[in-house]
């Protein structure tokens, strides 16, 4: 996998998630692009490359999610990014896709969309579980925010389903860029310089 392709692609996906996806929100359910990109990589890249990609994605997500810490000494609460939970959650999200890819027809965009939904759901479950563990000893307010963990899981699973549905289009676009990624398992037909498509 070419990292100079993955990093800008994931950066664009995260930027869209942060700045643009709220437009497409249906109530509490908000689609995400990063699971689509990560699932796309997990379908084609080597196992190590996929786990590294999940690690980088999680690090980016952790950097974006600050938790509010109230202090008795200061009436103004402070916001502290917690590095780690999203990293583990993204690894947990990429893992089932790595296990499932052998039984999926990856050239089909439906398979990528299904993998994206699986990735988003698994990472959401892992994140809420980690946040619940942290809340038991470290965080006064759980990392998922207010409300119960079950409610957070419900919203995240709904968002994962929405991500899978909306991921059909970006999955198609990502397939168009397949030669540029230089995936290890994409086969020689998708190696750089080889012409693809229906044209003779």
């Amino acid at each position, binding site marked *: 996998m070419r990292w100079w392709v993955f990093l800008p692609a994931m950066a664009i996906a995260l*930027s869209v998630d942060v700045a*643009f996806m709220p437009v497409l929100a249906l109530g509490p359910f908000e689609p995400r692009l990063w699971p689509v990109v990560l699932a796309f990589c997990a379908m084609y890249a080597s196992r190590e490359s996929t*786990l590294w990609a999940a690690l980088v994605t999680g690090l980016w997500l952790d*950097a974006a999610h600050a938790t509010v*810490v109230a202090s*008795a000494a200061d009436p103004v609460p402070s916001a502290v*990014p*917690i*590095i*780690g939970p999203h990293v583990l959650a993204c690894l947990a999200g990429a893992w089932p896709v790595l296990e499932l890819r052998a039984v999926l027809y990856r050239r089909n965009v439906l398979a990528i969309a299904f993998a994206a939904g699986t990735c988003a759901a698994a990472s959401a479950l892992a994140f809420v579980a980690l946040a619940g563990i942290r809340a038991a000893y470290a965080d006064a307010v759980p990392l998922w925010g207010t409300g119960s963990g079950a409610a957070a899981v419900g919203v995240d699973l709904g968002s994962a389903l929405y991500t899978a549905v909306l991921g059909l289009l970006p999955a198609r676009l990502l397939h168009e860029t397949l030669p540029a990624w230089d995936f290890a398992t994409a086969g020689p037909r998708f190696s750089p310089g080889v012409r693809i498509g229906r044209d003779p």
Partner: protein
Amino acid sequence: MRFPTSQRLLTGAVALAALCAALPERSQAAWSGAVSVALWAPLWPATALLSLARNAIRPSDPPYEGLPEALRDALAERDRLQGELDAASLRLRQVETELGELTGYRPGREDGWRPRLATVVQRSAGRPPGLFVIDQGPEHGVDKGDPVVVGGNRLVGLVAAGSAGAGRSLVIPLDDARAGRIDAVVMAPPPAPPAGAKPPSKPPAPVAVLVQLLPAGKGRLVGEFDPSGEVKPGDPVILSDATWKPGAQGMRIGTVEAVGVLDANPLRRRVEVRMDADPARVGRVVVKVSASGTATGGRP
């Protein structure tokens, strides 16, 4: 370009991530902010552009669109003034509440105590999470054992011994087992006069039934009383404990929630009391500080 994908390096990175994920936020506060800024700096231009696109797709509604400019300006000025009025009203209500807390007391002995308004500045995260800290300490005349009340006469707890920092005091709520056993009185309504009897010239006084209460947590206290007294759910319970300071006597603890049998002692009955003030929700309290030289009794 190939990323270093050695298995050992990956395992180390995952282990480091797991370690970071387990660290409490105070351990990360020193450096995670810088990491966050560094990671998100490259994304800022794209995020800013996409935000512009989002605002173009879903613009916020401009106020009073389509109206003449003079009318729009007048309405905007009205909104500004309304905002200032709302803020002033809010402040006025807050000051009135504080004044009401301070003047709502009519002590039998004015020289026995004086009210001291305090704000809850911290809550304990321990087990059970009942203790809270107020911003009034020994420097303000607050002493250990001083009762803490809200709403005029609803008892919340008492000031604990020990320091909670300069100008601060720890308060043990009534429902915390660390507050110990509490002697109280249930103000049971008087028995109804027999049928056909002449009504009394003045309303009969409630009958005081002594109870001993033990804190049971979550705003509840459980106790027992002599079955000769008539206690019913809804009866008020007030403090009558010689170990508490004089200012606490007669303050209301709560309301009888349930009355039942006491299996361990058939000669007595069981009573459950629900506190009137929820210690977990109070934000401002009044400490009944003993006036110097007049305080008598009180917990050691």
